[in-house]
């Protein structure tokens, strides 16, 4: 059976240890050198970056996340042993692992490291589809001749380089489609390398739970539960038409996934459809002044992102989550697309004023969608708001100042609310 040593990258046919370096970190699979669709997932990415930058943290459980009300965004593997999980409320995490060091996320730094990883992936194939900062799909079909080595070898080299040159680790899933590649990368974390071949797909999936499918959340899970579908085996008993009838588009997809089929291509540069930011408050609030401050700060972040991408949105969305977790969203279609924080803020503020709901809220989000190129944005003034043009100019000037002297060089008073 073809095998590869993930430490010294030797390929060989026989044995459970590497014949060259005697390492036990060997991946062997009959289809190892034929499969071409991969998913790379960094291990506890944010926490790993923190440990990388601060070696004192290396042997301590580290939780990256926000404040007393916040949630865990990443926990290192030492913390995970104690039961800490992503998206867990921070107080609960600290109960499980009181000795953990909690660090606030430094998004800019993560973006920086993510770019280094991305650069390495780009050397493997032009078809890289990032899902977030720390994971991506890669299609290595047809690259074997170029690299002089099959995809499996190149992927093992990628994670080795990530570890040696950047200092973070990742896990690889290798299979014949995106769905299974993503499933595979999760099988043997951290520092894993798992393979799901075409021949074993049916056998592999049979008893696995449906919630393993990326995109099946609690709501979908519940409706599947009602239909008596828990495992892939349950799914196989359904006719395609019945699934479609009951679950719509998702039914069709489920029918194919149950058979290990996923036709989606790895698509680089998946178009951005919206830009949004949200924040969970330290304390629930219905105070308009406080909410106003949050709207401004988020509008500014959304605007920064839009400006960086050279995009503008025609629809502005305000999202509020009540203390009871009930979600309220309001949208407004602008007369012309915008990328200016001022207009996003004013639109959201009007939406808030017209909401007719007093809160309190635990979360607020601001977003723009129906994106167009920035050249189509903010081109027309407003007769009834003659200052709008001057505010736009002021914002552009402030952007330039920030670019030169740093983010906090100039801020609006309302950002301090």
């Amino acid at each position, binding site marked *: 059976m073809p095998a590869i040593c993930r430490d010294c990258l030797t390929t060989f046919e026989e044995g459970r240890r590497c014949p060259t370096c005697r390492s036990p970190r060997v991946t062997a699979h009959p289809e190892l050198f034929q499969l071409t669709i991969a998913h790379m997932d960094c291990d506890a990415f944010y926490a790993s970056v923190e440990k990388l930058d601060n070696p004192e943290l290396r042997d301590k459980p580290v939780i990256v996340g926000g404040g007393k009300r916040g949630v865990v965004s990443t926990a290192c593997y030492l913390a995970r042993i104690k039961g800490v999980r992503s998206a867990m409320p921070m107080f609960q995490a600290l109960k499980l692992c009181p000795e953990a060091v909690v660090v606030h996320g430094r998004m800019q730094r993560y973006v920086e490291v993510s770019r280094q990883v991305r650069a390495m992936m780009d050397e493997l194939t032009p078809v890289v589809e990032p899902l977030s900062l720390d994971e991506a799909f890669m299609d290595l079909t047809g690259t074997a001749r170029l690299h002089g080595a099959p995809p499996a070898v190149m992927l093992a080299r990628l994670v080795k380089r990530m570890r040696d040159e950047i200092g973070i680790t990742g896990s690889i899933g290798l299979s014949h489609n995106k769905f299974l590649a993503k499933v595979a990368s999760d099988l043997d974390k951290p520092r894993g390398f798992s393979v799901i071949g075409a021949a074993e797909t049916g056998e592999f999936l049979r008893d696995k739970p449906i919630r393993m499918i990326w995109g099946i959340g609690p709501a979908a899970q519940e409706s599947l539960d009602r239909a008596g579908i828990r495992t892939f085996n349950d799914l196989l008993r359904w006719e395609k038409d019945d699934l479609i009838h009951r679950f719509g588009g998702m039914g069709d997809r489920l029918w194919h996934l149950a058979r290990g089929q996923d036709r989606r291509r790895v698509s680089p540069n998946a178009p951005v459809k919206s830009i949004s930011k949200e924040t969970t408050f330290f304390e629930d609030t219905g105070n308009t002044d406080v909410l106003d401050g949050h709207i401004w700060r988020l509008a500014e972040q959304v605007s920064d992102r839009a400006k960086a991408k050279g995009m503008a949105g025609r629809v502005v969305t305000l999202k509020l989550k009540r203390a009871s977790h009930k979600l309220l969203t309001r949208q*407004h279609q602008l*007369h*012309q697309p915008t990328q200016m924080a001022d207009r996003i803020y004013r*639109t959201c503020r*009007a*939406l808030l004023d*017209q909401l007719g709901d007093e809160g309190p809220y635990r979360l607020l989000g601001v977003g723009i969608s129906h994106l167009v190129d920035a050249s*189509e944005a*903010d*081109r*027309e*003034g*407003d*007769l*009834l*708001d*003659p200052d709008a*043009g001057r505010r736009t100019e002021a914002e552009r000037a402030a952007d330039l100042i920030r670019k030169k002297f740093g983010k906090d060089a100039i801020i609006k008073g309302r950002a301090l609310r």
Partner: protein
Amino acid sequence: MKFSIERAVLLKAVAQAQSVVERRNTIPILANVLIEAEGDSVQFRATDLDIEVVDRAPAKVERAGATTVAAVTLNEIVRKLPDGALVTLAEDGASGRLTIEAGRSNFSLATLPKEDFPVMASSDYQTNFSAPAPMLRRLFDKSKFAISTEETRYYLNGVYMHVSEADGGKVLRCVATDGHRLARIDADLPEGADGMPGVIVPRKTVGELRKLLDDDEAQIAVSVSETKVRFATPDITLISKVIDGTFPDYSRVIPTGNTRRLEVDAAEFAKAVDRVATVSSERSRAVKLSLDEDRLILSVNAPDSGAAEEELAVAYGDERLEIGFNAKYLLEIASQVDRENAVFLFNSSGDPTLMREGNDTSAVYVVMPMRV
């Protein structure tokens, strides 16, 4: 209730009523038209709670009475009846059905009790005056294109009708704007209109009102209070709530110091704008106006789809100027001009531009330029 009525007369009355009725209704009675027969006429009344229209038509009433039926269905039936038919509508009160007979056609419609029909409370109208239909037609037709559809600016969702001072004294004035263009139309102040409270007439009301104004000879009785406005002909009465809001101070929006004067044949101009805008793929099609002595070049440059240019002979004697506009807005204001040349007054490429017909200041339009 039982009456006979000529099909054409019935259709006109019912059509007017059903257009007020909202298509999607949560309150069943609001989908109905109230029919009241008495003496030698029948009244058709419909409402959406903001607008009420009452249409009176002559009929041969055999038995007085009243009932309500679905306005849209009744309209459809009457519309499909042959021209010239005599239609008999009858309701006996017990069956809860309205029967419609015409020739050999027979219909029976479900009714709802007339008591449930909401009749709009009357208002104390402070101002009452009479205005010829062509005058009101001009005031509203020339301003309504600028009405805003933005719900966040609900106070712009109508035409602001009020009394104002102009050069020649007091005028009856209609203003509409959506923040990108503005129309200000003046008419001689009708007798009795002085002191009228300024009201914002909602977009839908403007549309309904238009149907009362087709007859050149008609005199429209206008009544205005702080909260309602009423337009009436001998046959039709339209009552509408006005928008509860403050119309912004538009006077500071209208530029007074614009000196760069362009005079152009409005129809030629509109056609040229329409032609060059064809190549633009954007939703807001930007057209650039490049002005030089007695020469105007209209151009569109859309990197993704193409470019277009057209030159027009115009009267222009000022410095060179380049200014961009939304093509749709230019077309709309140019189409308001029907007698003389269009006169544009510019300031700079970033300032509002004024347009009027010749030297007539009784209809002025303001349009905001666009970055090109």
